[in-house]
């Protein structure tokens, strides 16, 4: 096991607490074990990484094609982060074990916590930038789960969503930035990117890349103006706040600044963006902290300000600024985690975190109070504690840094001012919680917490003091290694020490201390009225306003689009079609000379008839019967056109289709309600009219262009090979059953499916209303005539079917012919619409037809030929002569069966439908 196991240990560990609970193993134990094991692994690398300053690397490919690899590196910087994550993680697990109620301390808590730990370790160790993004977003997700842990609290859910949205936004920006880095450099591997830092910084996209990456870092580290999510994340259980929202996750942002330091920093743009953002955050955070009444709120804003401080340091262009930043990163994690835990203890033992209600806690809980006071002193930057060291360094660096906006005083003055405020809120925290008269009206009587709840705080505070007293001994090497890894180069010699002589930074510290106490003492007079205005977080209000506006406008958009109207969609589709056609067809039209347009008088007449009838259909659309009659005229004209143009097969088919269609339509008419009234305004009607004309025009022009050019096509093959290879004189039929039999097979299936669909759909409708008895009976005369007609039709069908391969006819036409006869009989015998057969039995026939049509095709496959290859046999029969048998006949029989069954399935179903009214409602 080496360092590469660190993230996976925790990530896979995250899966354990749930299942292990069944074995009654305490999930905290699992989490603790993972953290301990991780620490062990990490410490084993100390000699190489910290002492020798080496970088350990390993790489496993994941998606090589995208440049995404599981490449990990452990250098000083990563070591520092991992140490924090694992060390504080271990303490937090211990703390949570005693903080949470036993029924809460389940896999639902430890699972995400471990997942978070793994993701954080992943960020610290990623060598591949894309992989870093992966872990980055994982921390957002696990943080969401942890903040919303108490899901029944509105604040928790809201805070969780806000955190996820804001950090999610940053994550996406970071992803974009990383993708662009990859495009510019040609690799996502950190080593490569650092090598090509000059190319990157000189690239025209550098400003965009920088902004995107910084957006990621700033949202994660709660920098202004994205700072608002962090205080709301405090709705999480306190162990989570201590771990994620002060010590580690929010540090991911500043860690990213450190990681990108070698290849993004060092430009004017970086200096201004990072420094100013850091400074603003530092000031705003410490100012707002002063007015928080919630203990955790105060700590949250304080965290915001300290993150600003670290960011500010990374922005500075001095050699030692990164070192100061990393030292403060460590120090802040230590003292802030202990403060959060102390706040949790107070909450746990008193039932409130409200500073206005808390008072005089020193007496009932002296140990906790002492610990918290020491940690708060460190936060305020009191000497002999670790906070003092990094604050001194911070002051030094602000003095050494370049002028900002040409003024050298801005940075030091801002830093001092922020420190004044920081001292003031630290004093407020201590003074109001622990001193003064004993608190009254608390839910619980304050007392010291259980022993083990305090141990983590004790250890952390001990560390505060130890680092404060002997920094070089304890963390000197570590910080040096981390800073070297951060800048990827040599650092000037510098020893972190308690005493650097009497210098300007010390003066600034003293000013901050005295100023802070003064500000606290005079706060009421200084900030009168400010507090009331700060009661509601502006950031939250803005955020929720934006989300609500988004949702609202989306809903309005949805309504405005009128998506439930057929016309909306049809207009869109047809308009697109017309536009495209106009764009492409009109220029082509200009190029074609009208040569072949004289035509034939008969055709013109037929065309005229069709147009006339079509107008009738449109004008009479409110009277279905009349419209059907008109449409039959259109059909007839088309049929005659086909016949006139010597296309007997088409003419026959068209005629029969018309017949069956009209018969079925007539059967359906009684079920139509009144057509819906036209409610369109006249401009809309005009537009629709224009659209209709456009579609018609486009089709006409398209046809005309197509017919006036001669293109060599595959059709000649069909004509020439029909007889020799297709064994049939009727080319149309050979195309249908052989050349393109697969299409026919498909279309037959379509027909069968359509009838099945109708059967299934009308099943429901028909069940609701029994057929009415009020319809007229058919005269006896008609009944006897139809019988004759049926026989005739069936005979014709057989004839048409058999001759189909060589003369007009075939399965489809024969099927329609038979169907027409059957429909007549049916109409004559069943005027009441009672079904002759159960439609279910018709579905069997449909299935049989499809199977029959497939039979020769499948048989061909068994004979080693392609699906639907036709087979022919010539049988010399006595008396009859030579008979040509072909498998396409079976295929055609399938077509025949499906066609007949379709008609017979639909018709009785129509008969069983309820009359008129319900369908009318539907139409409206």
């Amino acid at each position, binding site marked *: 096991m080496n360092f590469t196991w660190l993230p996976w240990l925790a990530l896979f560990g995250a899966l354990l607490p749930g299942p292990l609970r069944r074995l009654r193993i305490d999930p905290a134990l699992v989490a603790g074990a993972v953290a301990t094991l991780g620490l062990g692994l990490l410490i084993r690398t100390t000699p190489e990484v910290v002492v020798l300053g080496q970088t350990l690397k390993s790489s496993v*490919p994941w*998606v*090589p*094609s*995208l440049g995404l690899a599981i490449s990990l590196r452990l250098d000083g910087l990563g070591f520092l982060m991992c140490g924090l994550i694992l060390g504080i993680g271990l303490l937090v697990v211990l703390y949570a074990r005693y903080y949470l109620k036993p029924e809460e301390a389940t896999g639902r808590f430890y699972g995400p916590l471990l997942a978070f730990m793994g993701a954080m370790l992943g960020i610290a160790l990623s060598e591949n930038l894309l992989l870093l993004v*992966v872990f980055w*977003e994982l921390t957002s*997700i696990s943080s969401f789960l942890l903040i919303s842990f108490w899901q029944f609290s509105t604040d928790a859910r809201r805070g969780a*969503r806000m955190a*996820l949205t804001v950090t*999610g936004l940053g994550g*996406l920006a970071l*992803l974009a930035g990383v*993708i*662009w880095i990859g495009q510019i450099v040609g690799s996502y591997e950190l080593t490569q990117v650092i090598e090509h830092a000059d190319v990157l910084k000189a690239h025209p996209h550098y400003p965009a890349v920088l902004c995107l990456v910084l957006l990621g870092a700033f949202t994660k580290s709660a920098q202004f103006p994205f700072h608002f999510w962090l205080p709301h994340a405090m709705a999480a259980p306190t162990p989570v706040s201590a771990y994620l929202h002060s010590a580690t996750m929010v540090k991911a942002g500043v860690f990213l600044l450190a990681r990108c330091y070698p290849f993004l920093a060092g430009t004017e743009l970086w200096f201004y963006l990072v420094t100013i953002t850091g400074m603003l955050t530092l000031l705003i955070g410490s100012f707002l902290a002063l007015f928080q009444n919630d203990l955790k709120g105060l700590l949250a804003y304080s965290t915001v300000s300290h993150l600003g401080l670290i960011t500010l340091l990374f922005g500075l262009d001095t050699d030692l600024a990164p070192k100061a930043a990393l030292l403060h990163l460590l120090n802040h994690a230590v003292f802030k985690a202990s403060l959060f835990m102390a706040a949790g203890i107070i909450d746990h033992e008193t039932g409130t975190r409200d500073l206005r209600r808390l008072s005089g806690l020193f007496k009932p809980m002296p140990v906790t109070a002492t610990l918290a006071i020491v940690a708060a002193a460190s936060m305020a930057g009191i000497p002999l504690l670790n906070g003092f060291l990094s604050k001194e360094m911070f002051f030094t660096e602000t003095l050494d840094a370049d002028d900002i906006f040409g003024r050298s005083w801005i940075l030091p003055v801002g830093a001092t001012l922020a420190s004044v405020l920081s001292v003031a809120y630290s004093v407020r925290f201590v003074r109001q919680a622990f001193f003064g008269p004993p608190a009254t009206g608390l839910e619980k009587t304050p007392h010291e917490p259980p022993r083990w709840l305090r141990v983590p705080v004790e250890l952390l505070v001990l560390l505060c003091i130890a680092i404060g007293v002997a920094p070089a001994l304890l963390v000197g090497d570590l910080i040096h290694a981390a800073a070297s890894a951060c800048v990827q180069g040599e650092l000037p010699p510098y020893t972190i020490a308690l005493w650097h002589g009497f210098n300007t930074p010390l003066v600034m510290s003293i000013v901050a201390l005295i100023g802070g106490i003064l500000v606290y003492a005079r706060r009421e007079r200084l900030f009168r009225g400010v507090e009331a205005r700060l009661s509601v977080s502006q950031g939250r209000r803005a955020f929720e306003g934006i*989300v609500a506006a988004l949702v609202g*406008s989306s*809903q309005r958009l949805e309504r405005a689009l009128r*998506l439930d*109207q*057929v016309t909306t969609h*049809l207009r*869109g*589709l047809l308009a*697109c*079609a017309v536009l*495209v056609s106009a764009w*492409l067809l009109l*220029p*082509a*039209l200009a*190029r074609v000379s009208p040569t072949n347009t004289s035509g034939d008088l008969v055709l013109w007449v037929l065309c005229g008839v069709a147009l006339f009838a079509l107008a009738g259909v449109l004008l009479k659309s409110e009277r279905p019967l009349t419209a059907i009659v008109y449409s039959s005229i259109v059909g007839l004209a088309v049929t005659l056109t086909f016949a006139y143009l010597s296309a007997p097969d088409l003419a026959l088919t068209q005629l029969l289709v018309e017949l069956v269609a009209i018969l079925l339509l007539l059967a359906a008419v009684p079920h139509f309600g009144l057509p819906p009234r036209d409610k369109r305004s006249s401009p809309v009607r005009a537009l629709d009219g224009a659209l209709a004309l456009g579609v018609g025009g486009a089709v006409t*022009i398209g046809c005309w262009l*197509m017919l006036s*050019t001669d*293109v*060599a096509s*595959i059709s000649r093959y*069909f004509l*020439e090979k029909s007889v020799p290879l297709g064994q049939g004189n009727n080319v149309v039929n050979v195309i249908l059953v*052989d*050349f*393109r*039999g*697969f299409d026919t097979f*498909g279309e037959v299936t379509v027909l069968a*499916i359509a009838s*099945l*669909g109708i059967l*299934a759909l009308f*099943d*429901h409708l028909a069940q609701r209303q029994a057929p009415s008895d009020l319809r007229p009976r058919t005269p006896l005369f008609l009944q006897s005539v139809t019988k004759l007609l049926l026989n005739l039709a069936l005979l014709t069908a057989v004839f048409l079917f058999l001759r189909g391969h060589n003369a007009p006819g075939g399965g489809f036409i024969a099927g329609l012919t038979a169907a027409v006869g059957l429909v007549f009989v049916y109409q004559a015998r069943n005027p009441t619409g009672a079904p002759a057969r159960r439609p279910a039995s018709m*579905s069997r026939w449909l299935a049989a037809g*499809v*199977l029959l049509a*497939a039979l020769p095709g*499948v048989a061909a496959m068994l004979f080693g030929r*392609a*699906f639907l*290859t036709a087979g022919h046999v010539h049988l010399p029969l006595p008396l009859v002569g030579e008979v040509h048998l072909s498998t396409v006949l079976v295929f055609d029989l399938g077509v025949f069966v499906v066609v007949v069954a379709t008609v017979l399935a639909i018709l009785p179903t129509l008969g069983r439908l309820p009359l008129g009214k319900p369908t009318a409602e539907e139409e409206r």
Partner: protein
Amino acid sequence: MSHLIALPFVLPLLAGAVLVALGERARASRWVTGLASILGLVVAALLLRQVHDSPISYQLGSWPWPVGIELYADRTSAALVLLSAVVAAVATLPAVGYDAGRGRHFLALLQFQLAGINGSFLAGDLFNLFVCFEILLISSYALLVHGHERPPRAAIVYTVLNLTGSTLFLIGVALVYGATGTLNLADVTARLADLPADTRGFGLAGAWLLALVFALKSALLPLGLWLPSTYAVASPTVAAIFMLLTKVGVYALMRLYGPWLDSSAPLASVGQALGVAAAASALVGALLALASRSLRQLAGSLVLVSVATALMALSAGGERAAAAALFYTLHSTLAAASLFLVAACVARLRGKAGDDLTTSPPVTWRGGLVLLYFGIAVLVAGLPPLSGFIGKVGALEVLARTPNGAALVGVLLTASLLGLIATVRAGNALFLRSPAEASRAPAGSGARTTGGAAALMFGLSVLLTVFAGPIREWVDVAGTQIGSPRQLRSLSQAELLEEPRP
């Protein structure tokens, strides 16, 4: 001769016919459906292996190319056939017991639809593509109204719109045939890129009409707004299978226009329009997701986004873009299908309230379901580490290289963010906000199977994530096949007449 390529079409079709013949015999129907699912998976897997080295072509009816109808499978088609086999197999698991009992011929229609879908992925012929579209559409009309007493409004919209689309398809085919004189898809594609002046106008108009129809099927703006409300009325298991329908549109766009998108051929302009339309689609889809009132509607809106993402990637042009689009398509189908299945599970647990995004009645049988929902939310929103992220990185990478890269990347990421907000809001309403006492009630009818199917689908996405490396490499080759024109023999009329039958 290997008939493997015909089987993904023939088998479900025969299975459908047998199921129709079986009628109401539920037990036997289940067996047939199960068998068909297993056979479908086996066939698809074998096909995938067969196309590993080179694409295969199959001349139906043993007529020579390009006269006869060709079935053609390269890596892309085979991958999509496998995808549809998987989605169909998993989504029918809960449908067998539940939906099948709520109307007739349900399982048969599913098989028919699968035949149409597979046929579309394998069609090497433009008119045959139309026929396969018809098969899947006509089944979808019937499946959409399944379980409803009367057709819901959205179903009518869907049907009318698609019938119109079919008409345009037919007109487009006619124009293209008129200009190129051929129906073979590869032949058509090659000829469209280089049309003589006198046929160019209407030939391209035909090609554009086809593009419109495919855009309609794949639910691309401005033609795609039917999808969320339509899928919101479909039975969720049906909606899960409907995921494949949009992919048919995407595939057709890839197949017909993919080779030319980064060329100077006149068809390249389709790509530019595609890019713009897809960008708009992604944004509007994400906004509609925010406005959705049910989980199915949310899923449907996110389908708009996911299809748009794939097509944005495709529109960048080139082989890598095609590969990115294909990978994203694989991911998004599984992801959206699992979201629909979760919606089905929620609906079955809550009875009348269905999958509406309301707090009450609370979703019973929590725990696992909540976890599953948020897992799928991560998947759908494209958050790491799941396949959505890997797919998105692939798309972003090709988009970043285009001239308008910054805008397109911005659109994609904005849509991602909105999608994330929408899924989290929905989860918040359904799972987090509901009262605590509703914790451990027994699962409702079929909820357990449905949840299981959703989990299975999610598990497949996890596999897609873990094996993203090899899969993406495989897909890269698929991208080279689809992103460049197929090598064709060009035959003169005389030569064609001398072609022997295969």
